[in-house]
């Protein structure tokens, strides 16, 4: 058993303007990963501005004071690098992996858009990226069967006003209403050095990175009054389950059973992670054994259970399966409920060991690349205050006991705290 889940060095510093810098050196390949976590996500969006954090992420690739429009992508790819960004309810992150001789370029580009985006932001760019994002919404959520499940689950799990109530992609109406001044203010408010963590992993030393960070980011001005997102840590239980049934153009009935659990980062969420793996990962999992194999209610490739790693409120557990031909949504749901409710009756040591073995491989797989390491470190620095906490994750999973799993199930997965989403095909002829 490993003593640590992170056997590479971690060095950190904080610039005078508040920017935290994390470095994890590894010289085994001439590659370096640069990753910025900004502590702003869709949980910060007020009513009427859903989707703004994500649309803003798009604007960050469209040029800044010293980087012309289209140049950002061209410079990174033209240096042999990969790059992208993602936004979720918690945070927005930007990352690139490049041959290491281009490290300074990456830091210069990130500093320029952290400190110099607003003067380069134009109405034309906003209008263009608004259309791109609307097409992203169509492509990923509207034009695929079950594509809007996440959009429907969040309001079932979190009440109006809760920071996780709405989905990051936002509504078409809000996106259409987005104006330039709002985005200029958004950058000024949130894209400040004291609201970000810069992580560099791979072929660079801490001294080198700290000096470059000071050079490129050191004079950026901190933002003293960054408004926090609404506090969502307590979600009052209603004492009664909620459900939504959607009839849509889908090929088979599908059921999602969901619960609010613990925020990512503590022992509670580590337990939840083991529980979800035991329940829904692999052919040896309970769901596969009992619903795909045993009772043959579910399509084998469709069963799953996972926690969504959100840190600022009880994070969701999602349990899902799609009905085999001839099986109704009611039969499938009854099967899922039986398996989920059964967790409180106990789990075996063998089940626990299987889940821990799979999680261990998955952990090392994520850390096999420098980009995977940079993201993990940035997450732990941003959400738990210290990148070194990354080393606790794997030992935390391995320390989970059967009693903790059953206790979590008994406490948090009760039927009265469940939100259920069901999709039904428009025509029932399918089930023949």
């Amino acid at each position: 058993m490993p003593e640590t889940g992170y056997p590479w060095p971690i060095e950190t510093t904080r610039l005078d303007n508040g920017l935290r810098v994390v470095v994890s050196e590894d010289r085994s390949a001439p590659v370096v990963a640069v990753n910025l976590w900004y502590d702003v996500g869709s949980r910060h969006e007020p009513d009427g501005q859903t989707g703004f954090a994500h649309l803003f992420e798009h604007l960050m690739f469209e040029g800044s004071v010293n980087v012309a429009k289209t140049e950002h992508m061209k410079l990174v790819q033209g240096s042999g690098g990969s790059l992208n960004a993602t936004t979720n309810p918690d945070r927005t992150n930007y990352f690139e992996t490049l041959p290491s001789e281009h490290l300074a370029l990456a830091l210069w580009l990130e500093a320029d858009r952290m400190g110099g985006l607003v003067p380069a932001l134009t109405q034309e760019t906003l209008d263009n990226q608004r259309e791109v994002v609307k097409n992203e919404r169509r492509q990923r959520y509207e034009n695929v069967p079950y594509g809007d499940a996440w959009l429907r689950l969040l309001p079932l799990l979190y009440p109006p006003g809760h920071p996780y109530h709405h989905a990051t992609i936002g509504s078409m109406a809000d996106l259409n209403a987005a104006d330039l001044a709002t985005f200029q203010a958004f950058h000024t408010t949130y894209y400040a050095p004291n609201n970000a963590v810069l992580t560099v992993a791979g072929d660079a030393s801490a001294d080198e990175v700290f000096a470059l960070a000071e050079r490129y980011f050191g004079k950026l001005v901190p933002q003293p009054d960054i408004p926090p997102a609404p506090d969502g840590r307590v979600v009052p239980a209603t004492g009664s389950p909620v459900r939504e049934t959607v009839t849509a153009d889908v090929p088979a009935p599908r059921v999602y059973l969901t619960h609010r659990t613990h925020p990512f980062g503590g022992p509670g969420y580590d337990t939840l992670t083991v529980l979800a793996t035991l329940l829904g990962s692999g052919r040896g999992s309970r769901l596969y054994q009992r619903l795909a194999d045993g009772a043959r209610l579910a399509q084998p490739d469709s069963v799953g259970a996972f926690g969504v790693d959100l840190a600022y409120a009880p994070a969701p557990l999602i349990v899902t399966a799609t009905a085999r031909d001839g099986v109704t949504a009611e039969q499938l749901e009854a099967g899922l409920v039986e398996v989920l409710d059964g967790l409180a009756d106990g789990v075996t040591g063998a089940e626990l060991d299987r889940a821990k073995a799979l999680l261990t491989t998955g952990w090392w797989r994520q850390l096999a690349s420098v980009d995977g390491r940079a993201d993990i470190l940035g997450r732990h620095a941003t959400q738990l205050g210290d990148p070194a906490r990354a080393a606790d994750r794997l030992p935390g999973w391995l320390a989970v006991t059967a009693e903790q799993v059953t206790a979590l199930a008994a406490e948090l997965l009760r039927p009265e705290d469940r939100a259920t989403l069901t999709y039904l095909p428009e025509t029932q002829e399918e089930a023949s």
Partner: protein
Amino acid sequence: MTEPGPILITERPPTGTARPYTFPRVVRKTVAGGNVVAAHLPGHNLAVAVLLLDGGAGREPVGREGLSGVLAKALEEGTTRRDSTAYALALEGLGTELSIASDWDAFQVSVQVQVDRLPAAVELLAEAVRTPRLDPADITRVRDDEVTALRMYWANPGPRADAALRADLFGADQRPGRPMDGDPESVAAVTVDDVTSFHADWLTRLGTLLVVGDLDRIDLDELGTTAFAGASGAAEPPGPPLDVPVRTERRIILVDRPGSVQSTLRLGHPAPHRAHPDYVPMTLAATVLGGAFTSRLNHLIREVRGYTYGIRSEFGHSRRFGRFVVSSGVQTAVTAPALVDAIGEITRTRDAGVTESELAVARAWRAGQLSVELQTPRAIASALATLVVHDLPDDYHATLRERLLSTDEPTVSAAAATHLHPQGLTLVIEGDAALIRDELVASGLGELVDAAG
């Protein structure tokens, strides 16, 4: 707020000193009659083993497309030694699962696991591949499950469009003209005998064992002996490259998807096979046209027009055939203008070639991606598979890097002129026909036909 000028460094930093790129040391050996190809990746605590067999989609009979996928599922339904549950628990207890992938040229079964557990994992891998139970009732059930899984997949936009494109390019009566993974009908036609015969024909041969990890902690002889036990039979030649003509006139194939809020585009024509000498300049030309983010297609259709979330072009090659394809999803209302723009950029690239500045980005990106992407055991294993399937030398990736960096503009422009055929494109549009048909007919981009089925 503060003026940003003085607080930012205006000058773009110079490039530092590049460290040399090296592909991991490759070890080849013959064990128990089979070939082991390994790469040394010191310091990683995960290792990957892949049993690479010549039993991909290209070996499937016409009318049974998806057969290798059914076999893949059947391998996990128990072995002559233990039932499916005991097998799953043994494998997952090691922290791994079988990953089975079948493409045109190969059938690959792999495990990724902590290095000290690799021998046990390879034993289980070999047990499933070499001695599966293949109970007829299990085969029938996984076949039916595969039909359902494909029906689920085919409810998404894309598979029907791609099938229409393949059929038009290669002919619906030819294996390359049918979907690589089959469709619900072809998989429904798969019989128990098809599966057991395909196993006997292709999965009992020796094949090649690929191993990536810290070789100081791995015994290749032991792994090879396990993987090749009971196997026999040499490799079969793949057959010559297919001679597929490009259409003389463009055509539009409309696949109806009522209510679709986007039109899914698949535009393509036949292209050379993987071993063609123009492979590198073709790759670079497709990168300039639609590979990189700043490529011509993505720049115009996403970044200028806002018609799409993304659009890309590439040459896809297998051992015997290839194709050029452009893929995108565009808002329904702009379907025809997006097509006009896409064809315009393909035509411009064929006629006027690429510019030196665009090519510089494409070269650096493709070359740099070799070091950026080839970090993990899984990625290196995939690179080894490329060596074996296409019979390439150990220094292939290092050589490829040099070739990418040294290919000049006239060579790439010539490849674009030779291998892009905008006048012979098949334009498949999957979308709401009631909303786009008239516009497509009026566009004059080609004769419109409705997709079969």
